[in-house]
């Protein structure tokens, strides 16, 4: 029950680095003619901000050490990137251009985890 009068909490427009769901349905792109199984591919991907190494909220304290740290960050150094940190394989059953049937295991196809690196 939302309390009367309280402004709804503003959703943080910038989401931190995390894994986002993304499913490619092979029939949507016409690949189900040659990819027999699976019917689609849970691709996932990593996206989001990397406030690493110092989060902005740290700047809200006037403690000398914190202020020194926050103000000594060299803004020319590029920020960390939001990249996959854990991966897993998938098996695909498909027909090649000679109409031969192949069952193959592909490494590092599913993003299991993301992180700032």
């Amino acid at each position, binding site marked *: 029950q939302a309390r009367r009068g309280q402004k709804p909490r503003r959703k943080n427009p910038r989401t931190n680095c995390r894994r986002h769901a993304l499913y490619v349905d092979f029939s949507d792109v016409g690949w189900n003619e040659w990819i027999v199984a699976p019917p689609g591919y849970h691709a996932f991907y990593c996206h989001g901000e990397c406030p690493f190494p110092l989060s902005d909220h740290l700047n809200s304290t006037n403690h000398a050490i914190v202020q020194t740290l926050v103000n000594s960050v060299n803004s020319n150094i590029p920020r960390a990137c939001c990249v996959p940190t854990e991966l*897993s394989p998938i098996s695909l059953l498909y027909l090649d251009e000679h109409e031969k049937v192949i069952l193959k295991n592909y490494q590092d196809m599913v993003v299991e985890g993301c992180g700032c690196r």
Partner: protein
Amino acid sequence: GAVGLIPDIDRRKYSDSGRQTAERSDMNFLNAFEQRLLSMFGLKRRPTPSASAVVPQYMLDLYHMHSENDDLNIRRPRSTMGKHVERAASRANTIRGFHHEEAFEALSSLKGKTTQQFFFNLTSVPVEELITAAELRIFRDQVLSEAGTGGFHRINIYEVFRPAPATSKEPLTRLLDTRLVQDSHTRWESFDVGSAVGRWARESHHNHGILVEVLHPKESGASEEAQRKHVRVSRSLHSDEDSWAQARPLLVTYSHDGQGSAVLHANREKR
């Protein structure tokens, strides 16, 4: 390159916010994604299989049996893999199925014996792939005989070293595998042809095919013609064409291209 097949530039366009309206960026995105997928498969262009392309049930069973993509709760028929390939198959990251070239068949039905030559075209196997095992799967159809008890057939599998110089002569062959089977059963038989197939993939000029010899039982209630139907080695031995596509002999190779983990333990590889 395989990580996340979705090209960076367009990922967020295809997530929660739904599809972009600009047709052009859709096509660019899909083309980029397709090129990545094809290059990962080692394919130069998108395959366009004909309607007559057949996916053997055994390959589907292997996929469902071991793939983590599949809902393991669904009970499916389980093909029986040949014991001799299990170990090598557990290390393979590529499994290929081949049907023989019917144009090169050489069926001969002598008294008490049926022989058939099979040629499998392995040129689609990339040179960097090492074949560690191969099985020739042959289907047997139950023979009903008045006596009720099934007769015993001997199935011999030979590698053809040198084709017969003339039709009256015998080819030069080497025995690869043999089995005594009772014709009152219907099932797939798996024969170990790994030593020959591994060499053919490396040196295709050695590939003169496989000769299958079926010796039929002398004393049996079934007619000679019925006996010939037991081991499915030729389309012409059977009236119903429909079953041939799924009952024809299948060569299955187990190989590794040096990348990634085995197919048959994908779920165990998950990190």
